[in-house]
C-alpha cells in the first residue's frame, strides 16, 4: 500500500519533468534571437509601461521587436538600434534613464535621502550620548530642592490619608 503511494508520487514527479521543457526560441537563428532579446530587454513597452518590450505581448511591442530583429539582421549595432528608438519615442523608451541635466535629481535623489537620514541619525545619537553622560552629582542647591519636594510630597500623602478617614466618619 505504502509502496504504491511512493510509486504514484514518483510518477507525478517525473511526469512534470517530462512536460516541462525549456521554451524554444521562435526564430530559426537562436544567436540572433539572443541579441534581439538582449536589446529589447533594455527598451520600455509604451503601452504596458512597466514591462520591457522583450516581456510584453502588446501589439506595438511585437512590432517593435520585429523592427529590432530586422535591424539586427541588417547588421546594426545595439547603440544604433537604441538611438533609433529614442529618436522616435524619446528617453522614455529606455528602461535605464540616461544621466543628464533633467535626470540628476532622479539619479542622486536616493543618495541624497540616505545622506540626510544618516546626518539626522548621527545628530540624534550624539545628543543622546550627551544626555547619558550627564550624570554628575547634584549640587547643594539641587539637593535642597529635591528634599523640599520629597517633603511636600510626604505631607500631601498624609493630608490625603486624613481626608479619607474624615470621609468615613
Amino acid at each position, binding site marked *: 500500500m505504502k509502496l504504491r503511494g511512493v510509486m504514484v508520487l514518483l510518477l507525478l514527479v517525473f511526469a512534470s519533468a517530462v512536460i516541462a521543457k525549456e521554451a524554444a526560441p521562435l526564430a530559426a537563428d537562436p544567436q540572433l534571437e539572443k541579441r534581439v532579446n538582449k536589446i529589447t530587454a533594455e527598451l520600455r513597452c509604451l*503601452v504596458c*509601461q512597466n514591462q520591457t518590450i522583450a516581456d510584453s505581448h502588446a*501589439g506595438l511591442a511585437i*512590432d517593435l521587436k520585429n*523592427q529590432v530583429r530586422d535591424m539586427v539582421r541588417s547588421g546594426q549595432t545595439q547603440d544604433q538600434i537604441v538611438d533609433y528608438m529614442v*529618436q*522616435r*519615442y524619446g528617453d522614455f523608451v529606455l528602461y535605464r534613464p540616461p544621466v543628464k541635466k533633467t535626470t540628476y535629481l532622479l539619479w542622486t535623489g536616493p543618495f541624497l535621502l540616505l545622506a540626510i537620514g544618516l546626518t539626522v541619525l548621527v545628530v540624534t545619537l550624539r545628543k543622546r550620548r550627551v544626555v547619558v553622560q550627564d550624570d554628575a552629582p547634584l549640587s547643594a542647591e539641587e539637593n535642597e530642592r529635591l528634599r523640599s519636594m520629597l517633603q511636600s510630597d510626604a505631607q500631601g500623602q498624609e493630608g490625603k490619608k486624613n481626608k479619607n478617614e474624615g470621609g468615613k466618619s
Partner: protein
Amino acid sequence: MGRYLIPLIVFVVVAGFLWVGLSLDPREVPSPFINKPAPDFTLQKLYEPEARFSSTDMKGKVWLLNVWASWCVACRSEHPLLVQFSRANIVPIYGLNYKDVPSDAKRWLQTLGNPYISSLVDYEGKVGIDYGVYGVPETFIIDKQGVIRHKVIGPVTPAILDSCVVPLVRKLQQASAQTVVTREVVEGCVS
C-alpha cells in the same frame, strides 16, 4: 517651535511632490518629434489603392495627420467631432489608417462618416513606428515646412480643439515661410 517646524517642512515638501504627481499622466509620453521634421512616407490611399500619397506633397500647407483604426475604441469617440470639424474646412485632415483591414476601415468610414481628404494605409504599422505612434488615436499638426508642431495624444475633445488645435493651426497658416511658429504661442497646447 523648531521641534515642529522640521516635520512640517518635510510634510509640505512631500505633499507638494505628491500633489504635482497627481496631475501627471504617465500615459502621456512627450513626443521627441515636436519641432522636428515629420518623417517622409509614401503610402497607398484607402479608396484609390493604385494612387500613392507622399507626405512631401503637403509642403506649403498646414495639415493634420490623424492616426486611426477601425479596431480602436477611442477613435470612435473622437470621430463625430472630426467629421464636424472637417466640414468647417479650416485645415485638411489626412488619416493614417494604422494596422487595419481595408474592408473594415471602409465600412467604418461609411457608417460613421469620413472626415479625411484621404486615408493612407499603414497596414504593417511601419509609418506608425516612424512617427513614434504608441497608441491610437494620435493627431499630428504639421506646418508648411513639414515640421511637426504638436501632437494630440488620445481622442481629440472639443476643449482641445478650441483651446489648442484651431488657434495653433490659424497661427501656423498665417506664418510666412521664414517665420518659425512653435506651439508655445498657444497656451492651450502647452498646459
